[in-house]
């Protein structure tokens, strides 16, 4: 019954929020100078060793905040796209939206319109992501056909990768190319509050645009004709999702590079617990996305390696096998339907 589902969803959200809190503290502890939880909390309040205070508040806090914000934003984008397209395989990274955003940002830098700390950078990334998602909607059309969608996504992500390769190709010197390449790997290393300030406004816009119309996604469960005859303004819902996803993905990529598959994975993690109603997935998915990226970023710092493992590499290493598993599950389900 609905009340039981509501209670379970609320319980899950409280549990996830606690998990995010714990992971934030752990994230503040980890680094070249390991700190005890008590030291971290004291340093947050500005007390204790001044060096610890600087390490926690100025080096690790922005990184931690960005991990939580970007995780939540990417997860919400995935949940919103899956709901709108009525397709559990939908997510920004599957369609190359982050690569497109990266292309936009790289081009802006290469052409000298932006440096890595100006608002021009997220704007360029958002515009490129906007074009990519709009092209996907146009190519895949109104149908929820999984094959059309994935083929359109494949074409668009190839195009975005080609654009990024072109930027690398035309990079003025070796170091510029290396910088672009590292940035594409996706990382939260050495991020400051300037990065937070640069991305956060666009992320808040993205949240508002994606959360407000989510009841309409529930009506879309029965297809576009039922949604429209139920009073859903489908054009508005599409436009809000388009701009919401683009500004969320664009802002994330502008400050942290390409971090894929958070948007694909997290909705699936919360669905068994909150049910499949697409509107119910959004908020728990945001919390789960924040927890997931925080955990991945912590892991990227703990894995022993000569240079720090980039968090974007880590999420892809987890995300791609998960995607393959989803495809296999979908295939066996289709097979069962054919058999009866």
């Amino acid at each position, binding site marked *: 019954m609905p009340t039981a589902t*509501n209670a379970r969803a609320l319980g899950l959200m409280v549990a996830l929020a606690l998990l995010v809190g714990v992971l934030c503290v752990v994230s503040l502890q980890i680094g070249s100078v390991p700190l005890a939880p008590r030291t971290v909390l004291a340093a947050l309040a500005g007390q204790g060793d001044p060096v610890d205070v600087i390490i926690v508040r100025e080096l690790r806090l922005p990184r931690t905040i960005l991990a939580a914000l970007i995780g939540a934003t990417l997860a919400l984008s995935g949940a919103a796209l899956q709901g709108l397209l009525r397709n559990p395989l939908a997510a920004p990274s599957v369609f190359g939206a982050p690569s497109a955003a990266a292309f936009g940002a790289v081009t802006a830098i290469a052409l000298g319109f932006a440096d890595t700390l100006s608002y021009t950078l997220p704007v360029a990334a958002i515009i490129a992501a906007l074009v990519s998602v709009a092209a996907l909607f146009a190519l895949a059309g109104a149908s929820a056909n999984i094959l059309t969608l994935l083929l359109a996504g494949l074409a668009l992500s190839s195009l975005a990768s080609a654009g990024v390769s072109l930027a690398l190709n035309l990079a003025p010197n070796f170091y510029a190319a290396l910088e672009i390449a590292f940035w594409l790997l996706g990382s939260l290393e050495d991020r400051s509050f300037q990065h937070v300030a640069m991305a956060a406004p666009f992320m808040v816009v993205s949240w508002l645009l994606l959360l407000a119309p989510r*009841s309409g996604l529930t*009506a879309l*469960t029965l297809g576009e004709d*039922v949604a*429209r*005859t139920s*009073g859903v303004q489908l054009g508005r819902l599409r436009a809000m999702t388009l701009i919401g996803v683009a500004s969320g993905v664009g802002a994330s990529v502008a400050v942290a590079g390409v971090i894929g598959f958070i948007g694909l994975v997290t909705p699936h993690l919360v669905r068994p617990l909150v049910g*499949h109603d697409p509107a119910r997935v959004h908020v728990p998915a945001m919390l789960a996305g924040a927890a997931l990226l925080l955990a991945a970023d912590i892991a990227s710092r703990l894995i022993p390696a000569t240079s720090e493992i980039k968090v974007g590499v880590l999420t892809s290493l987890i995300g791609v096998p998960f995607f393959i598993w989803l495809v296999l599950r979908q295939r066996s389900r289709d097979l069962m339907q054919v058999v009866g």
Partner: protein
Amino acid sequence: MTLAAENIGVRLGSRQLLADVSLTLKPGELVFLLGPNGAGKTTLLRTIAGLVPASGRVLWKDTDLARMNIRERARLMAYIPQGHVAHWPVTAREVVAIGRFPHASSLSRLSAADDAAIDKALASADAQHLADRIVTELSGGERARVMLARALAVEAPVLLADEPVAALDPEHQIGMAQLMRQLARDGRAVLAVVHDLTLASRFGDRVIVLNAGRVVAEGEPLQTLTPDLLRQVFGINAEVLKTETATALVPWSRTNSNRSE
């Protein structure tokens, strides 16, 4: 209190899907929309529901539906499309709750009145026992009832259903037809597309016959579905079989065995 479609025309590229179609639908009557494949039945139903750009107009009590806002319109007409698709494995109750979308500000905070409407709709469609089942796991007959319950939860005076009995077994076909007739008796205006002429002539108060985008006949079923009309429009000969308890129109043979369709 009449729904009236006036001079509806729909073009798709160079094809005229509907031409000069007019019809009326009154509360209390069950009207079946008949016609061969490609006659324009679904297009007409979707046009009345406001899903297809068309010339002409659709009126409810002298108000042009094009002037109503989308939510007002959603409260006036409930539409059940073909196929009874559900894209997510949600519960039947969650599906029926979608019917409250035109009334509620948010589906996650339904009022007591919304819950009551959902319960009543499930009961009217004889689907209470399915409420907690996952809709994608239901049989065709069960799913048809859940989709009907969703439309009933709208509490709209007009119900439009596209092939509600397709792919149902005989028991569920008769059950669905009886349900639709009961809904009409309770004061709704019901317009449904069907292919089954026997069912249409038995349960319908009226039938409207479409062919090649035009209305070619309209009226009381057995008087309208004359041998001439069945031959010309459907390419079939039918028998009217009478017993003490039943009169049934039964499609029997093709008029031209060379006809490809």
